[in-house]
């Protein structure tokens, strides 16, 4: 399979994730969209890794997955805080700080 297929898939996933980040009001959904973007990266890495017969890409992907998990953990913690304080998971409620 040509590598381009994977690249296009990953680009599509990346964009979808980006759209989700921008369009979703609910912070949990935003977090998930970010995950989507990171997975797009993983697809890239693995596809390249397979093409080049180089295991480094897969190692990279593993790290990405691990760190993504940590990120989500922290993200959810922050969302939880906001939810506790504002009684809402919506990001547009976070509007206090501006010049």
């Amino acid at each position, binding site marked *: 399979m040509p590598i381009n297929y994977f690249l296009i898939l990953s680009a599509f996933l*990346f964009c979808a994730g980006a759209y989700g980040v921008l369009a979703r009001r609910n912070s949990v959904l935003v977090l998930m969209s970010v995950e989507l973007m990171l997975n797009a990266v993983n697809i890239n890495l693995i596809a390249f890794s397979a093409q080049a017969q180089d295991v480094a890409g897969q190692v990279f992907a593993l790290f990405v997955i691990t760190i993504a998990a940590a990120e989500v953990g922290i993200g959810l913690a*922050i969302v939880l*805080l906001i939810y506790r304080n504002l009684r809402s998971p919506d990001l547009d409620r976070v509007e206090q*700080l501006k010049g």
Partner: protein
Amino acid sequence: MGTPYFDYHALAPVIVLAAVALLALVVDFVWKDGGRRAVPQIAGIGLLLALIPVFTLAADGETRSMFGGAFVVDNYALAFAGFFLIVGYVAVLMSYDYIDEGDYYRGEYYVLLVTSVLGMVVLASARDLITIFVAIETVTLPTFVLAGWRKHDTRSNEAAIKYFIIGVLSSAVMLYGMSLIFGLSNSTLLSEIGSVASGDNPALFAVAIFLTLAGFAFKVSAVPFHFWAPDTYQGAPLPVTAFLSVASKAAGFVAMLSVVALGFFASPNSWQPVIWILAAASIVVGNLAALRQTDVVRMLAYSSVAQGGFILVPLAVSGDNDAARAGFQGVLVYILIYAAMNMGAFACVIANARRTRSTEIQSFSGLGRSNPAMAVVFTVFLFSLAGIPPFAGWFAKFVMFRAVLDAGTTAAVVLGVLAAVFSVVAFFYYGTVIRRMWFHAPVDLGDTGSPQVPGALVAAMAITTTVVVVIGVYPQLFAKIGDLAFRAT
């Protein structure tokens, strides 16, 4: 690849830091009452302990490479490692009373701080994309938590979520870029990417480089990736803000410097215009936006955006006319000096906020009369930030201009002129605070806090002031570091 070779001497700073983080965690957990006193001490002493191997390694002078070249301890790495450790230590000093007195005391604060510093130390040695990625996330993830440290304060929450969302988004962009680089060069090692970069590459390679740099640009809050900075700086606890604006930002620069100097350098067309744009935009927008601020933290936030622009200038011209060495040195020296003066400035802001419960610029009115010593110290930092001799800031500007003129190309000169003009504009807003402090009578702020500046904060101020003044008068110390760090490359 056989059994990985471990050079424990080279890894010693990292190991010490990891141990310290763990120890602090355990102590806090086990020793509930005493921990409150002990944990910060452990963190502080641990950071200083980690300096010892840095010095021995520096004295040794040998370049140590591990993990197939992914982790290298050379002068460059040591310079930054030492720098991060000291900045971390000052951050601990600044945090001590702030965290202790607030309602949010947790031993984890110091654990997170040390962990972040750990990430930075690793980052300094990282010579491959994976290591860089892991290191930079180790730097960043704890700071997400720290930014939201005051968990009942919605402003702190907001600071954290903004920082977090933009941060992970940037990470995603960066990773996407890295994945493409990996694909195009078939390696994650910077040295190998470097050899690829010197050849002919598809335009996509340049885009990949840009995406990678964009992730770092977020860390250094370069325009147009800076939007989170003012909000986060304002909402986060002040010591964290200081840490973010200095250490975390510096980490971004280190990452940028590493990938540019060791990786992409050979294809200047791909990275140089990008950094040029980032630098120019940061200088212009940062300085102009800072003019309008009434809150000192937001002002310093934009100022740090602008300073970030200045730091990028030498890098942006380093591809021209063999100016590389001067450029890289310029970045390094500027970062070192910037760290000292910005940390110091934040120490003063913290002290003043303790006094007035406010971070409005107005709250500095008459400080020159009510607390002249602090006003003098803050003035020194502000002048230094503005680049006025004999405080260290001038030398930072000096090396920046030096790189520009060393390059001597039109693009470089345009950037230099921009920098010159806006370094004058910058005095407008630094001067505003100075005028408030000295030329205005004190205003009554009602609920006033403690006028005493606590010892740890005094120590932080003393360290930073000393650096700013000594380097201002004898810049050779930092210049030498810059010289050594790039002698190898």
